[in-house]
């Protein structure tokens, strides 16, 4: 069954890491437990949740960095694990780009920004000479960096926000259709963070670029995403339109998460600390149980069934 209205469809994705430590017993980590999600073209899906719940693992699976233990990921209706020919794989790696938390990590300190942008244009779009130069200028301007001052600089000569723009420019340069952004703004100060978010939103709206946006910052998820998925212990416990999920959370973990979003007006003075900690513990115990059953809260808002506390 193929739906053209979806760019990406994740169906029953499960990933089990088998650990065989030098000392101690072999054991397994179920990083993804039967995840099903989809993203329409030109939309953004935000994934938020517990640290260690499998968000980055999900992003890496979509980027085809490893094989799932079971389940499928389909891009434009095509199972990415079934891609065999070199051309098909290369085309997928071009279409899907990752942007990481540390804007420095993906840039080579020995090369100028021009080099970083030229390479993908030469490799994937086979541009040379004048055409290459004008394409470099264009992607640079697209992310609101001044080509005249930026192109000959080295990564360490740029601020974190500027580096993150270069990473997004690179994704534009290769002609990415889907960008997996794994906490792209958490190391940036708020004003730079805002400008990078605005840029991502514009890439989505004017270029129809699709985003898988992984974050701990629920306000930014609400700002940029068309859908939100809340993860806990390898499962998606609740998902849907951000405003529906945020204004009417159903799952105890979603409620807990939203209640913990910092509010500058409420000083942490120790009152309620014990009760918050014991509530968190109770919710964790409950949310850890895998449950196959899903309920539709209202159109566009779903929750996994849970036992009452």
């Amino acid at each position, binding site marked *: 069954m193929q739906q053209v209205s979806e760019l990406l469809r994740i169906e029953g994705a499960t990933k089990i890491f088998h650990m065989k430590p030098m000392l101690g017993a072999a054991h397994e980590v179920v990083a993804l437990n039967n995840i099903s999600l989809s993203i329409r073209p030109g939309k953004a899906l935000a994934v938020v949740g517990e640290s260690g719940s499998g968000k980055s693992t999900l992003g890496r699976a979509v980027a085809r960095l490893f094989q799932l233990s079971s389940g499928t990921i389909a891009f434009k209706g095509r199972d990415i694990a079934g891609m065999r020919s070199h051309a098909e794989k290369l085309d997928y790696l071009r279409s899907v780009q990752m942007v990481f938390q540390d804007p420095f990590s993906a840039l080579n300190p020995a090369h100028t920004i021009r080099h970083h942008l030229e390479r993908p244009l030469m490799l994937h779009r086979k541009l040379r000479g004048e055409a290459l130069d004008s394409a470099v200028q264009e992607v640079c301007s697209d992310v609101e960096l001044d080509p005249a001052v930026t192109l000959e600089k080295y990564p360490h000569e740029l601020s974190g926000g500027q580096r993150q723009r270069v990473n997004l420019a690179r994704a534009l340069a290769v002609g990415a259709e889907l960008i997996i952004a794994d906490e792209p703004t958490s190391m940036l100060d*708020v004003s730079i963070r805002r400008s990078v*978010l605005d840029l991502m939103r514009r890439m989505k709206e004017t270029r129809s670029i699709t985003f898988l946006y992984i974050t701990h910052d629920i306000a930014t998820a609400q700002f940029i995403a068309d859908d939100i998925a809340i993860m806990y212990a390898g499962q998606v416990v609740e998902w849907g339109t951000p405003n529906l999920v945020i204004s009417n959370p159903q799952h105890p973990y979603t409620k807990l998460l939203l209640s913990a979003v910092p509010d500058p007006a409420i000083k942490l003075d120790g009152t309620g600390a014990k009760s*918050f900690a014991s509530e968190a513990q109770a919710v964790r115990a409950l949310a850890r149980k895998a449950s196959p059953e899903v309920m539709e809260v209202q159109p566009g808002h779903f929750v996994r069934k849970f036992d009452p506390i």
Partner: protein
Amino acid sequence: MTDKPLLDVRGLKVDFLTAKGLFTAVKGVDFSIGRGEVLGLAGESGSGKSTIALALMRLHRPPAIISEGFITLDGEDVLAMTPERLRKWRWSSVSMVFQSAMNSLNPVLTIFEQFRDVIVRHTGVSTAEARARASELLALIGIPQSRLDDYPHQLSGGMRQRVVLAIALALEPKLIIMDEPTTALDVVVQREILQEIVELKRKFGFSILFITHDLALMGQFADRIAIMLEGKLVEVAPSAELIANPQHDYTRRLWSSMPLLTRG
């Protein structure tokens, strides 16, 4: 007199001697932190927050040099300390949770071995005593002592972050510097950890320099907030005041650029 601040920083200037010339990252800042007080430090990235943090502990490395200013902690002139005094003073009087702390544990040492290194080096107690102290600290931060012999990669990010914090607390310092201690954590774990810190602070009475880009969190946790821009402190005020009535243009810009959660 106890109304004297614990930490007093006057005219602190830090230069980087780079190939391209002299770059002044911290351009003469003045601030103080009272006993038991949490001072928040926010501001532009690259404005010099981590540079100040390292300079306070005299952990700055070349090409950075402290070219001017005074740092006084509990009446002691920090810039005049001998290397030997510094070694004793660090961790026992001032400790630090580094930016990206959850990756700052040594991957080849167990959790206990990392505690032991700090405790034994500074207090000269036996391994058994260090172990008892480490267990006690783990209990304080809500991690079962059965995890003491685990390696860092066997703990979740939140647990690693808490271990780093517990090590910073190990010698009951007077000041703890926390440089973005919770960036990699979800808000639930973040809240739990900060509440643990509030509780410990009440017990031990230490002061905190708290650096973060998360202004809402800063408002919740800090008593006073200092805002930094291009190597200078542009505004310092009690949290509630700075939030309700920011004076500096840059402070106002910071607040207004922050996306807020709407629950409506």
